[in-house]
């Protein structure tokens, strides 16, 4: 199961990076979203996938699930949700103001 998840995370990273390298702004935003999904899946996978055990550590409980990665993912999801929504608004405003959403044309020059 971990192997499938790792491959899935890898695929998400690949497609994310591919989209990140495009010229169109919206694709780049989608690329960042895909990369963050990949990263979140990756955190989940890193602590071994397990079902049916309580997230409790006690001396007489031998079988338990690790709650930490879930806490980490939750934090990370909230952050990437916030940043992605900010980025969408920013991309919208930037393309409106500059009259283009092509990154090639958004380079700028020295004195502005």
């Amino acid at each position, binding site marked *: 199961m971990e192997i499938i998840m790792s491959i899935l995370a890898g695929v998400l990273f690949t497609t994310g990076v591919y989209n990140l390298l495009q010229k169109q702004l919206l694709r780049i935003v989608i690329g960042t979203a895909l990369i963050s999904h990949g990263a979140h899946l990756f955190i989940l996978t*890193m602590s071994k996938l397990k079902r049916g055990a309580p997230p409790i550590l006690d001396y007489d409980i031998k079988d338990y699930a690790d709650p930490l990665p879930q806490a980490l993912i939750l934090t990370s999801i909230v952050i990437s949700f916030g940043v992605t929504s900010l980025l969408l608004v*920013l991309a919208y405003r930037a393309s409106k103001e500059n009259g283009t959403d092509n990154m090639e044309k958004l380079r700028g020059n020295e*004195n502005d």
Partner: protein
Amino acid sequence: MISNLAVLPIVIPLIAGILATLFHKKLSVVRIFSQIITVLNTVMVAYILWYIHQNGTVILESGDWMAPFGIVLVGDMLSMSLVLTTNIVALASVFFAPHSLNQKQEEFYFYTFYFLLVSGVSGAFITGDLFNLFVFFEVLLMASYAMIILGGGKVQLRESIKYVLINLFSSMLFVTTVAFIYSVVGTVNMAQIAQRVGEEEQTGILTTIGILLFFVFGTKAALFPLYYWLPKPYIVPNPVVSALFGALLTKVGIYSIVRVFSLIFVYETDITHQLFIWIAGFTLIFGAIGALSTNNIKLVVAYNIIPAVGFMLVGIGVYNSTGMSGTVYYLIHDMIIKAALFFIVGAITYLAGTSDLRKMQGLIHHYPLLGWLLFISAFVLAGIPPFSGFIGKLLLLQGAVEADEIMIAIIGLAVSLLILLSMMRIFIRGFWGEKDEKVVANKAAAKKFVMPIAFLLIFSIVLGVGAEWFIPGIESIGNDLMNPAIYIESVLKE
């Protein structure tokens, strides 16, 4: 020792930022409020630093969860002296801001984002947990995203996209790296990671993770192949925002490298730290070339951030206590001088009406004090004795020579000259020359700008002239960094 003092530098600006939203349109109130809170916060951080000096590291185990399980905040000498420097820069900024921002920018929650930025930076310095470091990175980045587009100009929007994208990408890489570390050593507490890496010896996979982490922090700190994003986004916002960025953001990246590579990944120095010296050399050279390549004075100062980061990396790369003390000293010195320089070029741009060096001349006739402040700060930056840059470079180069890295010492000296040249170009081209009779001097505005700049430069001069008072403290920080066991023990054994 367990104490709530460790959390105060994070919580006070955070609450102040939230309160500042309540009266963001009443500028006179929000200004006074922000100024008072910042002064109080600075005094309090100075007290905490003194307390740590007397009683040893303060630690807060949040929620009373014992050290490796909960999130710990660790206020040691290194982190708290950096928090104090952050607050000194913030203090100058909050007094500079009303003169530099226009009404619209100031009303649009500038002070809220300013406090959130200070809170995030302080948090990144204080936290003792790798994932929490990521969270504080995001706090300060979120505030910086908002600050960079404050005013919503065309150029600002264009540059902010690149800034947000590169930081978002490196943050996601950071999360992935934390996941790697968690799967290998089973913890995200920095002290415990260090302990486990020490017990099980640093295998190949851990060194790889270390390099990945270095890549993440290197992007934030603008090191050699990864600095291309830095100069443009740093010059488009208002000068006070540029100053906060230039003084604080890259320094958090460097602090993280110092922390991680003096505490956790210290067993394969042939690979990691040797790599740092190479990268430091390239960062120094390319940054200095960048600073000489342009006629835009804001860009000159923004490019000067890069060689400074290179200097700090030299100290980490040579990995001896002299080099480490040099890095710490240079970190403190650079935070102050970069803020002062961004204020100065911001003031020049405002007063001369352009940031193009070819279009200005003879400003010294109109604004003598500003000119001499630029002159002094160029000397501070380049490391002319008796100013603070000299002491920092002395320690760094001494460390490099002790470690038999003569080449990097030579590059460092040569680059210092290039930095001096790049700053002197501004002074000679902008301030010397014929008096431009058409220009009407705006003496009242110049006087307002000069105060915060002079305030920061006094710190730089005191740091240099009074080096005798600071060096013992800095050297003890350097020694502590070379002995990770001290940090580990103070976190895990109490």
